[in-house]
């Protein structure tokens, strides 16, 4: 079921020319600060590039997902979600910091992702925590996870503390600034890939 190694990564220029952004959301809550942070990033990204967004709430994937230990065991709808993450043009990996790291089911989702499916995939890391002292969980927990996958994590990861939010609405302009900076890099990398891929198509057509 996993994407074969030999298969070329899906072109970032899909039929409708929109970039497929997939969010893997590790928050267990319906209304979450983590999604409050991600929504700001998605909003800002949509002003830079045409995007379609697919969101995967790992805590809504059900008990069969939670108990699956092998990719073969997952239900078809969960398989669809795993494939969506594996074939995204941009993956946003977002989680609250629980007990010093990503949440349990967030990691479980990636435990079911094919070992090479995320190789060279552009991944934006995002996390929220009770205080600023959790910020480096992005670097010490999230980034190594995607290092394993040989993914291309965006250089700037975005973090927001509980105090930056009114409920789930992000208010702190400094975090907005950080998101803009992260997205400038992401948009640059995506644009390069679009360019490279259309140049390649050009060669094929000639």
């Amino acid at each position, binding site marked *: 079921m996993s994407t074969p190694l030999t298969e070329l990564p899906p072109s970032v220029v899909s039929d409708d020319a929109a970039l497929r952004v997939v969010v893997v959301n590790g928050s267990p809550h319906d209304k979450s600060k983590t999604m409050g942070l991600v929504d700001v990033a998605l909003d800002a990204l949509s002003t830079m590039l045409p995007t379609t967004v697919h969101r995967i709430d790992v805590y809504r994937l059900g008990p069969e997902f939670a108990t699956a230990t092998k990719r073969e065991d997952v239900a078809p709808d969960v398989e669809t979600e795993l494939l969506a993450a594996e074939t995204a043009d941009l993956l946003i990996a977002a989680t609250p910091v629980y007990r010093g790291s990503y949440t349990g089911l967030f990691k479980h989702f990636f435990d079911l992702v094919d070992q090479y499916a995320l190789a060279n995939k552009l991944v934006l890391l995002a996390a929220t925590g009770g205080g600023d002292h959790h910020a480096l969980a992005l670097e010490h927990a999230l980034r190594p996870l995607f290092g394993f996958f040989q993914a291309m994590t965006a250089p700037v990861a975005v973090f927001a503390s509980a105090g930056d*939010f009114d*409920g789930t609405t992000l*208010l702190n302009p400094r975090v907005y600034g950080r998101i803009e900076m992260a997205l400038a890099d992401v948009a640059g990398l995506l644009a390069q890939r679009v360019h490279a891929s259309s140049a390649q198509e050009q060669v094929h057509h000639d």
Partner: protein
Amino acid sequence: MSFEIGIMTFGEVTRDPISGELSSPRQRVRETIEQAQLADQVGLDVFGVGEHHRGDFVGSAPTILLAAAAQATHDIRLTSSVTVLSSEDPVRVWEQFASIDLLSAGRAEIIAGRGSYTESFPLFGYDLTDYADLFREKLDLLLQIRERNPLTWSGRFRAPLVNADIAPRADGGTIPIWVGVGGSPASAISTGRLGLPMALALLLGPITFHEQTVELYRAAAEQAGHDAAQLPISINTHGYVGRTSQKARDEMYPYFAQGMADNNHQRGAGMRIPRAAFDAQATPRSGLLVGSTQEIIDKLLTYHDLYGLERAIIQMGFGGMPQKLHLEAIERLGTEVAPVVRREVELRTGRAAA
């Protein structure tokens, strides 16, 4: 507007760590009114009572204590510090403060806060997961009640009001409503956007602790079209004015350490602040307002210069300081500190001639 200096209390009922005595709640409520009376007599500008729903405080119903203080005082402004608005009915809050305003001939004020303690939520049947939404909605309702009468309003957390007559109205037509901010960027920003005065709470830490909070507040106010420079900011911080620098520290420390142990729990147990850490908090570049008359004057002026403050409210008596020491500190603050600070601020801001 000149610089205002006040005091506030939670009405602590804490066992005296030196004498071992525990004052009764009956004694403590009377002492609280006596503090207000003296603060008024020595010319302080504000008296505040905090809201805490626990056996070791008598301040669970600050409006009742403020009403009693209204009868015992003449000029001093009377404020909650804070009203935990999220677990209150804003209609009732308005009715009570308007009554205090009538009793005191226009001296009532409200500091509306989210509450640093959460005991009131289960007591009044509110869910802590609604923390942010509760405050936003209730503040909106309170501001609208202040704005107009009768009022038609609807929200999520209480029954709608249809052409409701909410009485009495305030003595002077309005009541100042401040928002208590603990320092989170988001609450400073929401307060700025609403163009409301901000009462900043600073517990411990560098005196510059709230520079960013104030910047964010003013920037948010500006962006929302308010005259940011005109918005008043107040600081609430612990303190004590002693006869000498050393005496002040020696007298405040045992009680403050007790108060911290009772209220600042780590791993489920109280943590006493070590004397060295306390003394560090008392140095000129940190926030605690403890020291001699001159030290308090200097530090209040530093606060004023840093944040453009209009008001400082000093929390005294934390940890159940004996009434005698508490009253002496109020007297020094009113007679020796306040006149100098007010005059100096007027000189610095060029408002003396106005």
